[in-house]
């Protein structure tokens, strides 16, 4: 296989071919993913959207080598997810901030830098830089419990960014936050993506969030978890939250909603 060279030529960060993943449960085999094909190019912002159990988080965990597919092939930066993980090719933001309570904000951001063996000065400098980027300068010495939920999630974003990965996985990072905070962070994340030109893979179950942030939306459906539609979504780069009232935004949102409805069987 010479996929490594082709992927760099075409700038494909993620290539998924025919991926399936079955879980063995007490009630038999549950198909979390079935025959998933997907290619993500550098600099894209791709959202996975779908109801609970559609395998959107599972698909992302497969990409991050936190879950092993039972069939199909996955390449991340032209290599296997395991190799990509060992080369620390990506940052991962979880559904909850997942901060260590005994570490200060600064020390939490330092955690991956310590593990990856960055020098002391460089560690401090990177932590400072990314805490500033998420507007948390001045909170370095605070402990996680002293911060609001939104601030904690920003710390976890700074932590994922601090090792400067070109690829960022975000698993419903704003799912647990109130709508006002969520809008604010969506706006910040959009700016961040535009500034840093990173490839972002984003899991959400909010249609508005997906349409606002993404350059492409992958609509998924459960039982078995599969992709039923991929929607291009090239809204103007200087968009603000107001765009959610515009007709082009609503048209895309409508298509996502239709896709979700088509793939969702309420009778089972």
């Amino acid at each position, binding site marked *: 296989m010479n996929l490594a060279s082709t992927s760099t030529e075409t700038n494909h960060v993620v290539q998924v071919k025919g991926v399936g993943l079955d879980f063995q449960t007490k009630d038999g085999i549950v198909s979390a993913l079935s025959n998933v094909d997907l290619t993500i190019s550098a600099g894209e912002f791709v959202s996975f959207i779908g109801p609970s159990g559609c395998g959107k988080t599972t698909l992302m965990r497969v990409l*991050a080598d936190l879950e092993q597919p039972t069939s199909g092939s996955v390449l991340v930066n032209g290599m296997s997810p395991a190799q990509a*993980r060992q080369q620390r090719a*990506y940052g*991962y933001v979880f559904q909850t901030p997942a901060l*260590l309570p005994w570490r200060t904000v600064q020390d939490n951001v330092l955690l991956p830098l310590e*593990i990856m063996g960055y020098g002391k000065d460089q560690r401090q400098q990177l932590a400072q830089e990314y805490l500033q980027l998420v507007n948390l300068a001045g909170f370095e010495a605070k402990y996680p*419990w*002293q911060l609001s939920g939104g601030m904690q999630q920003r710390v976890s974003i700074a932590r994922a960014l601090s*090792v400067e990965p070109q690829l960022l996985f975000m698993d419903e990072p704003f799912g647990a936050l109130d709508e006002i905070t969520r809008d604010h962070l969506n706006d910040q994340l959009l700016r961040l993506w535009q500034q840093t030109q990173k490839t972002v893979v984003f899991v959400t179950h909010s249609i508005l969030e997906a349409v606002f942030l993404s350059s492409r939306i992958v609509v998924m459906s459960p039982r078995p978890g599969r992709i039923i539609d991929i929607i291009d979504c090239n809204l103007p780069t200087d968009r603000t939250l107001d765009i959610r009232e515009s007709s082009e935004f609503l048209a895309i949102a409508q298509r996502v909603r239709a896709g979700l409805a088509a793939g969702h069987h309420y009778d089972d």
Partner: protein
Amino acid sequence: MTTKTLGKPGSTIPVLTVILAIILIWYAGAINLNSPQIIDRYEKKGVDWSFSQLATDSWNMKRAVLPSPHQVLMELKTTIIDKNVTSKRSLVYHAGITLSSTLVGFLLGAGLGISLAVGIVYVETLDKSLMPWVITSQTIPILALAPMVIVVFGAMGISGLLPKALISMYLCFFPVTVGMVKGLRSPQPMLVDLLNTYSASKWQVFWRLRLPSAVPFLFTSLKVAIALSLVGAIVAELPTGGQAGLGARLLSGSYYGQTNLIWASLIVAAVMSASLVSILGIIERKVCYRLSGGQEVSNEL
């Protein structure tokens, strides 16, 4: 904000009430248990007696079945304050001997318990093979085991602190292993995943995540362990034939019918045990306060 004092506010009155009740029950019990002998004596001498006379005599009887609180207090005073610390009749001297083997046994037991837990959590074979043995070890009554250990070590010419400390260790490694295994497995799967995304090594995960997460569990176990360690030390002192230590004092008290001495030794052992557990509790509070990032945590015993 919760208060920073060690005791709960307003706990003095309930505690004093309980102590008062215990003392009253104790005095009543002393009359109940000692009076048959006293009445016997009255009848032999053929003297008239009143209840108040009976009570006073029951509370001041020599070699009483149940000595009264003030008799035990007097015994404590003579054996702790009046006697020189180096005297073989000083309870401070004997308590010191018991304390040293308790502490050595506790350190050995905690070390063994933590090592076993790390092995069980990190090596799958040990998880399957070791845990049943750890549990089986605790089904052997220590009273049966202790004399054998003392005798075997004695035959090899080893006596004194080490065999006693080993018995303490045997008792106290168990709660530490169980608590520590649970603690090391306590981090949320998400945090383990997080460190996996960094390709952290097993030892990085251990030092940065598993160990700090295990500390609250560890302290709970250590408090149980140190109390057991003291029990182990006292039990280990019984078969030595009453040479030294609180266990030896308990034994000689029962040989010679010196009930005052038995009760005084028991009280010293209880106070020592409670103090050791409280000291660990204070350290626990400080450490857990730091581990929670300075957030107040309630850690009741």
